[in-house]
């Protein structure tokens, strides 16, 4: 699944991810496209707080894996 949050400011990418991640199977990934400078620290922190896995970024594409 890909969430296109380009041009959207935090916390909107985080809100989109929190809505979308429960809709994929445990073990699957969601890719968030985001260009807000706060996206990387906030996605990492969200994954830490929610027990999900931040897998890394390639350019503006951030990958998050559902663990639970």
């Amino acid at each position, binding site marked *: 699944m890909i969430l296109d949050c380009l041009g959207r400011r935090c916390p909107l990418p985080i809100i989109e991810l929190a809505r979308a991640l429960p809709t994929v199977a445990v073990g699957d990934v969601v890719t968030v496209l985001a260009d807000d*400078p706060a996206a990387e620290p906030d996605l990492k922190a*969200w994954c830490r707080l929610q027990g999900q896995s931040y897998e890394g970024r390639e350019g503006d594409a951030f990958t998050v894996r559902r663990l639970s």
Partner: protein
Amino acid sequence: MSRVCSVVNLDAASGLPLHPLAREAWMAALDDGWADPARLYGSARRARQLLDGAREALAGQLGCRTDELWLAPSGSQALYAAVRGVRAARSRAGSHVVHSAIEHSAVLHACAEGPATAVPVDLAGRVSADGFTAALRDDTVLACLIAASHEVGTLQPALDLPVPVLVDACQAIGRAPLPPWDLLAGSARKWGGPALGVLAVRTGVRWVSPWPEEGGFPGPVDIPTVLAAAVALEAVAVERVAEDARLRPLVARIRAAAAAVPDVEVVGDPDDRLPHLVTFSVLYASGEALVLELDAQGFEVSSGSSCTSSVLEPSHVLVAMGVSTHGSVRVSLSRDVTEADVDRFCAVLPSVVARVR
């Protein structure tokens, strides 16, 4: 004195109203301290006496000698000059500087003018002393560590290094015992004085002013300002232990109230910290909206979220800690904030968060 309106400022870390005793001293010094203290006539000698007394008081409170104390226009300029001045004075030894990732931007800008290594912090916002030791090189001339970040308040360990240590104590002076230092920077605005920076440089530490001025920093010394800064620092030093005991339980109440709101993370060390300051991150909420909604409820707070910064970048302190940067709220208590103010803040916080989300 009763409040004329119900607005409560909870942003002591950004600046404080003048301490009442400092205001009195400042007013009195306007009459006696206007002349150039470098001249030889009577009014100049009176100004000189006021300035000398104020410098002695400041040095006494900061734990240095008067000839180790420089007066700067602001804390930021003191910090910037500290780094540049050590690099300039020790250029034959090298120019590498080690600093924490959470230093004030004035330190980070100065460090970035040459080779520099940033030491990371943990989730609580604390460096390890070993991390500093490991980052030292043969050409390291200075280490910079903030005593406690103005953004989260976590106290930092004391450093014992073979290079001079610059301690940014802008938020800690008057609030907490200071760690050992070779250079010390402070800001009178943060302790209830007027806008004035201080830079103390221990005898034997090699530092030169980055400006070609004999007095260290360019511009005239405003004697009422220096006197008011000294009086304010003496006043908060007298009040410090009682204020510490009064504020810590109030901050603990705010921490508990924030943590009780779903998807809120209170950040920074819960105990080993400045007494007056607490920061939390509200997931799924914008910092700007939280600040505005709290303002509408009569509470003035600040935020480290990018939407509230002039450069639209998130706080480098929050990023270095690995905590969420959106929905950031910093609450810091002055001597004027009462228990009732804090209780009302705690009472409105859940509904404010709910409205913003």
